[in-house]
């Protein structure tokens, strides 16, 4: 990697100094002159007709400036699958019906938060409770209550993926397994809850400061919902306290603050409470999984069939994408010659399920990797061997779906095998479980229906050589500002400190779809690289004119030195060239534009990352309690742009994905989430965190900037499966429904004991 001077180096994040000194200003911290505070009234019923909303008492409360209900909106329904209007089914402020506990029905703006909250209690909503349905298996019955009128069996959307001849292939298998699994819900638990400050002025222009994963999506959706022109809405993303998939849809904080601000022509701030965050924002999709897997005696996998029913909750949201991706990633990371998937997303009267880090793949990886271990055991084959036998390789085509260029799965398997061997004989009741996975580097699908490039960037070089990088990419903590700045500096041949990034402000940055589906490094990275290359091209023209060497020589810039590639000692300072170039352009700053839209890259993604993880657990067989001892991961993400960033993504993913396997859940009673606080929602803390080791793998992705691909979400996929397999290795019980709690382990141990007798 030594050919690079910025990429691959351990650098400070570009937002570091402000974050470690408390000077970073989040939306949560913003106060504007004359700003009012808003609160949202939500349905206490899982399913009810709204008969009447009386806001008179609330409006009379001293300090209350406005109260809005669905009647104050255009009555549009919104959704992120804009290409399919029937899937845009969420009003945000409900007019006739509420469909889950937490569905917004009114909002208040007042001089302070306490007054706004007091006013909520004074709004009289008369409901007629309707029969409700909570479990998707119940909701698809003929006589189940209808969540949305006219939707047969409450089926929101179904997806079918198929290649090969699955039925024929099963006939040829020596061994077939059929297993059922249940994947639980999970909350994102961003440290900064959803919040927004919206200022609508008398001139008809709106500015939105909000904690979001996509300022462009919010701009577009806000335009859809308010009737304003896209260009009259400026969305600015200040530093954002986490996203993990929860923050790229238009939410109640943003929309209600906007409607209130439009009524008052004053800035309005809404910050969701932690309880609202748990009950009334999106969450991970619970899934019922039915898997059939067929293999030859030697472990060759011939066919797989996956059937999935997902709990959709009240609206479509991004859940339709999760339904698709869980189906696609159920085939990962193996070469199935025959594969069939049927998935159904079912409406229920529960909080909406949507995108969350991994986007359907943590579920499919948990079930798939669990079943694969069972298959390996049935056939008497080592778990790593069966993965090696069937694992994807470079330049592999998933029939009709995707083309995989780089793939380091086999190197990862080798490394993990070594690691397991090194651990040697384990103490009693310890076990190491292995799980392999893959993930995409940004989605190709465009259900949002953007007419713009998927990613775009503008680079401008100032007279002093300082570079302004404008991009719509959203840093939500994952570090895209740093990664993109590094790509820009490397391509331009300057130092990281020469770059100043301006990101995720729709008023000045070109549109980008935002931070989801692990797309920023590859897609926005390519856009930034192209924009920087364009600037470099302009500079080199002047360099060539100035130095006038043999025209056979090529120029390049590295470490602020503009030089001949073959005779690097011959060159001039970058700063001098910049000055001359600007002068030569009649005073115009040097500017370059770049964009990236994937073409002819299949249905899913232009590139895929791979990895293998080994989790070690130690089980107390009397209580079922187990400890996560160590999690070791071999992950390949192409060229590593920002090594510190990747470490953080990896270890952080283990906290989140380990939690999915170990303790995180959202139990409900009649549609009511029972643990809507951080006290009751169990998160892995420092004392619970296992040791983490990272084994580095070198690969190069031709489609990625400098050979890079995703390193964010994929890491959330393997851990639950690795834990499940480890518990099995340790004590011989298999838990098919998440999370794998001590209580379930103990119950299984007792049943096993009983069977023995």
């Amino acid at each position, binding site marked *: 990697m030594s050919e690079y001077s910025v990429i691959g180096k351990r650098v400070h994040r570009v937002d570091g100094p402000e974050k470690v000194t408390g000077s970073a200003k989040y939306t949560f911290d913003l106060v504007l002159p004359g700003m009012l505070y808003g609160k949202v009234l939500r349905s206490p019923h899982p399913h009810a007709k709204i008969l009447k909303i009386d806001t008179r008492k609330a409006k009379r409360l001293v300090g209350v400036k406005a109260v809005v209900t669905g009647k104050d909106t255009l009555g549009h329904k919104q959704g992120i699958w804009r290409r399919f209007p029937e899937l845009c089914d969420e009003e945000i402020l409900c007019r006739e019906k509420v469909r889950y506990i937490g569905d917004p029905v009114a909002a208040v703006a007042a001089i302070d938060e*306490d007054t706004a909250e007091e006013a909520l209690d004074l709004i009289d909503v008369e409901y007629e409770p309707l029969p409700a349905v909570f479990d998707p298996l119940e909701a698809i019955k003929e006589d189940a209550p209808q969540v949305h009128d006219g939707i047969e069996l409450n089926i929101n959307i179904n997806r079918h993926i198929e290649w090969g001849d699955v039925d024929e292939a099963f006939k040829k298998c020596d061994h077939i397994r059929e297993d059922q699994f249940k994947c639980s819900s999970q909350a994102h638990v961003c440290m900064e809850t959803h919040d927004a400050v919206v200022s609508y002025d008398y001139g008809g222009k709106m500015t939105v400061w909000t904690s979001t994963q996509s300022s462009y999506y919010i701009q577009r959706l806000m335009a859809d919902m308010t009737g304003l022109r896209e260009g009259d809405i400026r969305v600015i993303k200040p530093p954002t306290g986490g996203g993990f998939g929860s923050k790229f849809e238009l939410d109640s904080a943003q929309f209600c603050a906007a409607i209130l601000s439009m009524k008052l022509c004053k800035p309005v701030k809404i910050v969701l409470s932690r309880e609202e965050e748990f009950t009334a924002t999106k969450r991970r999709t619970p899934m019922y999984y039915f898997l059939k897997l067929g293999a030859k005696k030697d472990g060759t996998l011939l066919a797989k069939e996956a059937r999935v029913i997902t709990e959709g909750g009240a609206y479509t949201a991004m859940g339709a994408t999760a339904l698709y991706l869980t189906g696609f990633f159920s085939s990962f990371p193996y070469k199935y010659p025959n594969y069939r998937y049927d998935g159904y997303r079912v409406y229920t009267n529960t909080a909406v399920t949507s995108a969350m880090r991994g986007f359907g793949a943590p579920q499919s990886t948990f079930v798939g990797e669990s079943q694969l271990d069972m298959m390996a055991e049935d056939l008497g084959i080592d778990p790593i061997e069966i993965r090696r036998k069937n694992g994807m390789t470079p330049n592999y085509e998933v029939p009709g779906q995707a083309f995989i260029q780089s793939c380091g799965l086999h190197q990862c398997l080798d490394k993990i095998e070594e690691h397991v061997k090194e651990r040697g004989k384990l103490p009693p009741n310890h076990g190491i479980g292995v799980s392999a996975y893959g993930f995409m580097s940004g989605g190709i699908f465009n259900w949002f229906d953007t007419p713009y490039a998927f990613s775009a960037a503008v680079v401008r070089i100032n007279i002093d050589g300082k570079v302004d990088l404008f991009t719509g990419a959203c840093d939500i903590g994952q570090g895209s500002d740093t990664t993109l700045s590094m790509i820009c500096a490397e391509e331009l041949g300057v130092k990281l400190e020469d770059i100043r990034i301006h990101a995720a402000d729709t008023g000045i940055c070109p549109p980008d779809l935002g931070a989801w589906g692990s797309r920023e490094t590859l897609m926005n990275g390519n856009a930034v690289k192209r924009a920087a290359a364009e600037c470099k091209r302009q500079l080199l023209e002047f360099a060539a004119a100035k130095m006038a060497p043999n025209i056979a020589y090529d120029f390049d810039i590295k470490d602020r030195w503009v030089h001949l590639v073959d005779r690097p000692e011959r060159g001039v300072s970058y700063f001098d060239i910049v000055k001359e170039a600007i002068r030569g352009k009649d005073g115009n700053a040097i500017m370059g534009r770049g964009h990236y839209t994937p073409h002819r890259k299949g249905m899913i993604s232009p590139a895929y990352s791979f990895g293998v993880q080994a989790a070690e657990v130690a089980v107390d067989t009397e*209580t079922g*309690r187990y400890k996560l001892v160590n999690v070791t991961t071999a992950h390949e993400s192409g060229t590593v742009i920002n090594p510190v960033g990747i470490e953080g993504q990896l270890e952080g993913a283990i906290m989140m994905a380990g939690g999915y396997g170990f*303790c995180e859940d959202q139990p409900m009673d009649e549609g009511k989430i029972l643990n809507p606080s951080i006290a*009751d929602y169990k*998160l892995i*803390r420092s004392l619970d965190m296992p040791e983490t080791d990272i084994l580095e793998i070198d690969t190069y992705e031709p489609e990625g900037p400098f050979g890079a691909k995703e390193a964010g979400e994929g890491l959330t996929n393997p851990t639950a499966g690795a834990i499940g397999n480890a518990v099995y290795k340790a004590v011989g019980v298999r838990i098919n429904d998440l999370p794998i*709690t001590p*209580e379930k382990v103990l119950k299984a141990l007792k049943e096993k004991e009983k069977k023995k007798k």
Partner: protein
Amino acid sequence: MIKDFEHFAPKTLKEALTLLDKYQDEAKIICGGQSLLILMRQGLVAPEYLIDIKGISELSYIKSDGKGGLKIGALTTHRTIEKSSQMRDGFAVLAEMETRLASIQTRNWGTIGGNLCHGDPAGDPAPVLIALNATLKMASLKGERSLPVEDFTLDYFETALKTGELLTEITVPAPPAHTGTAYTKFNIIESDLATVGVAASITLGAGDSCQDIRIALGAAAATPMRAKKAEAVLKGKKISDALLAQAGETASTEADPISDMQASEEYRRELVKVLVPRISKEAMARAKKA
């Protein structure tokens, strides 16, 4: 949202009791507030008057009772107890218990008296204090009275404190010779509240027989409770693994836990069954060294 209230910050016990007497049930007492403030923020408790006793320094102390035991002021913070050099020998279990109680931040501000008065059946101090045979002193303008810790909690979040009364002191008597005490709690997240907590104190007699034993359970009933039937299984006997297992069985039957999202009733009983023998063994090992 917290409703407005009037705030009093008495500096002496006398002042506090006078205020309590004046406002009776309309006042709530706040000290560390690590539990009460959460309820107030949720709008579930909205007192007219808040008597803030955090500043009464005379109630924050750890001293000897003159007979080898300890007197702990109700306002002593968890962290002070955890760090106190007096928490050695037979009292070391108190410091051990404290290190697993919530987070350092909470222990720095929260007080042992506040924890007991909250009456949470899953609280850590109560089972340990019950095992140590501790008593509580309560004061009102009318005078003082004492109560064993095991009689202090009456129901979920209900204590024996009467209107006008304040918890002032915890007395932990010197453990008899050859006594060992131990505590453990089961939970999934290390610093979380107990799914089940078990404390045991064992005094060994001649030939290592169990001369006396106290077993206390947390989160196993509406209040912290003594497992007296399980104690009876062991008391006066030479302790064996079989007998310990029997004590565990007995304790799990006499416990009266509920099902909630942490654990089912059956699982809690199972945990009691496993943890009672485990912690009794630990207590016995300590008794042998004591």
